[in-house]
């Protein structure tokens, strides 16, 4: 029975790959592949769950494949199946199934019909990997796939400005979540000295024993998990991304942001519950966060005058309540609430265009000039206005992200404006050479100095990647810096201990290949168009769709996307950062966040957005 679990991952992967091969124009075939894949998945899920019930609902776990194994390190895909998986599987399969049918006619004649179904299936792959995952590493793979497919679906109308801008915005929030997860993985390697499975977390004594001696580590891991969950489920302070994600076709907004994607934060909490169950302070924190989110976003939902943002905020506030339920340990209620909320919001979003005729009719028959609302009975005059203004401004959440996260980064990057491609290259050659030399001849260096070297090199990497993120003139330069960042990280970690350079090679081989491919794409674009600045969106995917796709693959390779060696390498490299090297860990993870952002920025600026150089119809920037 356990071995069948593989089938639940392989089926969507197969469907996704198949859908990539169908020519653009074959609408019926494309939708049928999606329909059959998800339909078959749904039916198998029902049958499987019935069988599972008959067997008395056992918790299943299967260690699948070793991706990479070395002494003291084993990266393996692990699958897990229990009540939580069942609920997420059934809800997800049913909704995705209905949406694939729904979209069949809804997207008829839309440019990007195929792209839509590819992305939906890709999303579904990520979703399945995440909900079946048996350890954090596997979960992380699904997590990344979800993040990327979200980006692609928000930027579905890639020739307009706002979808692309918002897609980048959402991606950056997701990136924070990703790094939270990486850090959680890093610390738990040190806590358990293995890639712990969720199954083992159910062992109360084991967890209890480990947490007894490592209170701080336990709290740190829980906190990272909470940040990841909050980012994914649009809890405070990340909430403002959710309504902004509603840029794609309505059905995709409905399942992604109305229901499935946004509830995965809850999934993460439910899945790791045995781990933080014993940390009362964490549980209080989660509940408080949920409550605060529920209260604030309810207010924001009430002032929204556009139907989709209203549904988005209402959904966030329900998820806040689900967080509380989870923190209280009411798993069944949380699951039930999740399913109800997912169905409700999906349907509400799908019928949202009908709101015009429905509410206008209602207004025509039931209008009363002064509506009563709870706010008026609660507050008067000044407070009423204050809260109204704050709610329409979304409590400055969107501005807050800018102010405290991106603006300091930009400020830092701008300080590096004096750097040119040549000076950077020279600097890199010299300093990196010295660094390499020192790694191979550690014995020559004073151990006191040696202790500072990893942080020094990580800092250089960080500074470089900051520059990459804010570079405006030259995409090639930005790309070069992004690639180099991985070299700096590798160098920094190499000081830590004597590990075989194989691991570094594994890590860097992916980087080199992807880096070269990306460089080639940008060179080619420069030859074709003589434009390489990052000042605005250029939208070249309109003219060179194949080049755009190749470059996207390069971006995935370089950002450590789960299909690439870079990914395993990244994870591996992290295990070599010691638990007491918090500064190094935070620098490396910060540079990985910014690295990802810089990469997606290059892709977005060069290849998507309004294509200004052509003579086809171009939408207004504000539309």
């Amino acid at each position: 029975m356990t071995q069948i679990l593989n089938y639940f991952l392989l089926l969507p992967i197969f469907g996704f790959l198949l859908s990539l091969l169908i020519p653009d124009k074959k609408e019926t075939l494309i939708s049928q592949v999606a329909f059959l894949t998800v339909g078959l998945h749904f039916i198998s899920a029902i049958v499987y769950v019935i069988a599972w019930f008959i067997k008395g609902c056992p918790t299943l776990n299967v260690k699948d494949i070793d991706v990479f194994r070395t002494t003291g390190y084993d990266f393996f895909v692990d699958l897990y199946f229990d009540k939580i998986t069942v609920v997420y599987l059934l809800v997800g399969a049913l909704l995705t199934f209905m949406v694939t049918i729904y979209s069949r006619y809804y997207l008829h004649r839309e440019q990007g019909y195929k792209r839509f179904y590819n992305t939906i299936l890709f999303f579904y792959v990520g979703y399945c990997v995440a909900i079946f995952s048996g350890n954090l590493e596997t979960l992380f793979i699904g997590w990344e796939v979800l993040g990327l497919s979200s980006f692609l679906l928000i930027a579905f109308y890639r020739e307009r400005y706002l979808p692309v801008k918002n897609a980048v915005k959402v991606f950056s929030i997701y990136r924070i979540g990703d790094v939270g997860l990486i850090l959680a993985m890093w610390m738990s390697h040190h806590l358990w000295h293995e890639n712990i499975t969720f199954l083992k977390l159910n062992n109360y004594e084991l967890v209890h024993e480990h947490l007894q001696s490592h209170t701080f580590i336990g709290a740190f891991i829980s906190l990272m998990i909470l940040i990841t969950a909050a980012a994914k489920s649009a809890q405070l302070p990340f909430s403002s991304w959710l309504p902004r994600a509603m840029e794609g076709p309505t059905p995709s907004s409905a399942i992604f942001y109305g229901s499935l994607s946004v509830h995965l934060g809850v999934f993460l909490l439910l899945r790791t519950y045995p781990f933080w169950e014993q940390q009362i302070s964490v549980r209080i924190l989660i509940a408080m966060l949920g409550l605060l989110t529920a209260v604030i976003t309810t207010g924001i939902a009430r002032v929204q005058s556009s139907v989709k943002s209203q549904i988005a905020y209402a959904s966030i506030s329900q998820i806040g309540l689900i967080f509380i339920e989870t923190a209280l340990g009411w798993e069944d209620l949380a699951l039930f609430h999740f399913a109800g909320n997912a169905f409700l919001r999906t349907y509400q979003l799908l019928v949202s265009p009908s709101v015009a005729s429905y509410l206008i009719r209602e207004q025509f028959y039931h209008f009363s000039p002064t509506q009563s609302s709870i706010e008026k009975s609660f507050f008067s005059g000044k407070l009423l206005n204050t809260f109204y203004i704050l709610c329409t401004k979304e409590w400055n959440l969107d501005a807050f992200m800018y102010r405290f996260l991106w603006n300091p980064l930009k400020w830092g990057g701008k300080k590096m404006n004096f750097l040119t491609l040549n000076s950077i290259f020279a600097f890199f050659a010299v300093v990196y050479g010295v660094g390499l030399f020192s790694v191979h001849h550690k014995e020559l260096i004073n151990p006191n100095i040696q202790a500072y070297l990893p942080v020094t090199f990580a800092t250089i990497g960080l500074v470089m990647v900051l520059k990459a993120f804010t570079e405006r003139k030259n995409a090639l330069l930005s790309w070069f810096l992004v690639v180099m960042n991985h070299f700096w990280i590798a160098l920094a970690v190499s000081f830590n201990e004597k590990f075989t350079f194989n691991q570094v090679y594994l890590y860097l081989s992916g980087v080199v290949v992807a880096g070269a491919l990306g460089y080639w794409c940008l060179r080619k674009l420069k030859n074709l168009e003589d434009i390489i600045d990052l000042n605005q969106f250029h939208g070249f995917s309109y003219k060179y769709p194949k080049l755009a796709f190749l470059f996207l693959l390069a971006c995935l390779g370089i950002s450590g996307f789960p299909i690439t060696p870079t990914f395993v390498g990244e994870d591996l490299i992290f295990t070599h950062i010691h638990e007491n090297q918090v500064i190094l860990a935070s620098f490396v993870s910060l540079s990985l966040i910014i690295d990802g952002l810089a990469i997606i920025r290059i892709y977005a600026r060069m290849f998507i957005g309004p294509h200004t150089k052509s003579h086809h119809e171009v939408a207004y920037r504000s539309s």
Partner: protein
Amino acid sequence: MSSKTLSKIRNTFDAQKVIHDLKHFLPAQNPLKDFVHHNTLHAFQDMKFFDGIRKASAIFGYHVSLTLAEYRNLYAEGRIKKEVLDSIISEKFGKYEVDAWKEKMLSEKYNEHSSPRIGTLRSNWKRAYQIDLDSMVHPTLFRIICGFLDQGIAIWEFPEKEKTFLDALRAMERNSFSSYFRKSRAKSLLLNTDCKIEDLLKVLVGDEGLYSQYLFDQQFAHQGWSGIVSAVEDNPESLLDARKISLSDVITFELLLEIDALDYQFGQHQWQPLSQNLKRKPVQLFADVEATELNDVLAIWQLAFEWSYYDEVLAGIKLNKNSEIPQNPKTFQALFCIDDRECSFRRYLEQFDTSCETFGTPGFFGVEFFFQPEGGQFYTKVCPAPVTPKYLVKEKSETKGSKLEKDLHFSKHSHSFYSGWLISQTLGFWSAVKLFWNIFRPAMSPATSSSFRHMDKQADLTVKHHHHDEEKGLQVGFEIDEMVARVEGTLKSIGLVTDFAPLVYVIGHGASSVNNPHFVAYDCGACCGRAGSANARVFCDMANRAEVREALRERGIDIPAATQFVGALHDTTRDEIVFFDENKLSATNLNNHQTNHKIFDTALDYNAKERSRRFESINTELTPAMIHDKIKIRSVSLFEPRPELNHATNALCIVGRRSLTKGLFLDRRSFLNSYDYQIDPEGKFLFNILKAAAPVCGGINLEYYFSRVDNQKLGAGTKLPHNVMGLIGVANGIDGDLRPGLPSQMIEVHDPLRILFIVEHFPEVVLDTIQRLYATYEWFINEWVNLVVVNPETKDFFVFQAGEFIPYDLVATTIEEVSDITPLLESTQENFPVYLISA
């Protein structure tokens, strides 16, 4: 005048005048509930068509025609005909230039890219100051305007909505701990000064000579919101829950937000006005636009495209032999709206009952009034948009019918957290069932907008006026003489004055759709975007009155006592028909009616089949009845963005007797207005017909034209990501500008042709008629619509050019004849040429 005084004049900024000009150029689309088709580029209508669109394109960056590649492709496909193209070139440049010009038309490479003038001045913020003002200001501005205008989406309403926009903001800013502004200067300007636009511009721009252009740049950066504000300012009644907003208020507030954003970025008083950092002055927005060779080439292509089709139609009219009007006695007569969607329905009726006769007239049937349904809190105008009626007709009914069915999914309770907690865990599961159901078995629901809900079939209408019964300045019902005038006017204008059949149907139309914010655009344009059911019934009620008939007899219209008028409503999406007041029919007529009803049903099945050829989801080869069922399901499917194709492909407006077109297959592309020149020798009725038809049909046609050629800037783009904003418009996402115009799903099959009016009368009478009112004449003389006259006696054609009628020689000599159109319908989804239908 010396150059000095000239520059002085140019530098004087008059805010009122600039705002007046701005309002003229901004999109003039009303809020969703009052959507009415109009010429998108109405602001350029005082120029000749090709001059106007060239100018609009250079100033605002619109695409105003198909691309060169598209035209060349049409030529290669034979849709643009070689002979027509040759004759147009030779007429324009002479016979000897044909080859040289053809070379240019077919293979010359042109640079089709040009940068618009709009936005160049304001783009200097980004260039010289490295600040993206739009992305700092727009989200806040849009949200505040939308919150203020919102008609019922938000649960917590705008606090000071009864004040004017600026006063409301003042009141809120004055009495609050938080603020929409980030710095103190803008706030204090708002609270402590009268915020003159010129004073704010002085801070921002500095140079008075640039003010006007700056405001144009600023407002056209979000023409959707500015347009709706301007429309609501001019038509406050277009919002049921009225608001006091003006473009001037919005501009003022936007200028304050801009000052605030700059203060925030650079520090208060730390930045200089825009004119200080301007390297060179931008081109004057409205300076002349030189015509280029590319403009000529595109114009010739457009003309060739249009006349390739027109010529076929005219040849069809000339060669049409199957034009006999049925002999008496007729089984029934039916009045339809002129709408192009009724074109094929009429053809099938005439095919299945050769003794019936059909007519076309604007679908309010000449009775203009406000309608108040039972339980309605407001009045709804049901007549063409420019008319303001003096009458009110009320629906009286025991029950409220199906109008008010509820759907909890739209309930606002699901958005607050405690009731939302309950609802999501209960109703949430019901949603999954409903969604499942709707995907596999779509059906009518409260979410559907249905034409039959407009008026309850069983209800009574207050058609007759009773002594001094008035409401809010409107007379309830009509006096007898008012009824007589209306019935006479309508009947005479369509030429129905003798030979009445025992049953005369008066058939309004409406549409049904779901998940469609543009639902109003699908209903009857002559009823202001409502269904025509109330009008049809009111007309019949009038025409059935003995006292009315008596008076009509004196005026030469003798309606036999046995003749009864029956109102009906045709749902163009579902192809269903409902007849009203059948219980008032005499026994004989009821019997006849039941026979006719079957004819109507068959005709509707066939009509559904004809429509289905455009629909991907339906196999056109099925039987008419099977297709009809599928069409009905389609109309209520949540996932169907094209419930019907509305006016897409419209290209003709034929004003004349049915005999002109009866034997022609026009592929649902024509507005048909019945008219008999014999009873109107001086063009009295013709004048009224054209006065209404030119703006209505021309408006529909040009809105389709421009939404098709530039679906991004002049249309609404694809409707799939649309988000309903405040019940007044749609936008993409949550921060976007409103998208006026038509979504791509409505226009994708449309061929952008200007409409051709074909009038059956003598050229001199028509010339005299169209010149009586300049507003009407402007459409023709400036060529925004084309006009051809058919001499009713000789069937010779005269085309209207530069103020006179010139004989037109047909290029086509034959038109293909078909006996059965069914195989044709099943053959392709594309547009058809004109065919003769052999009897």
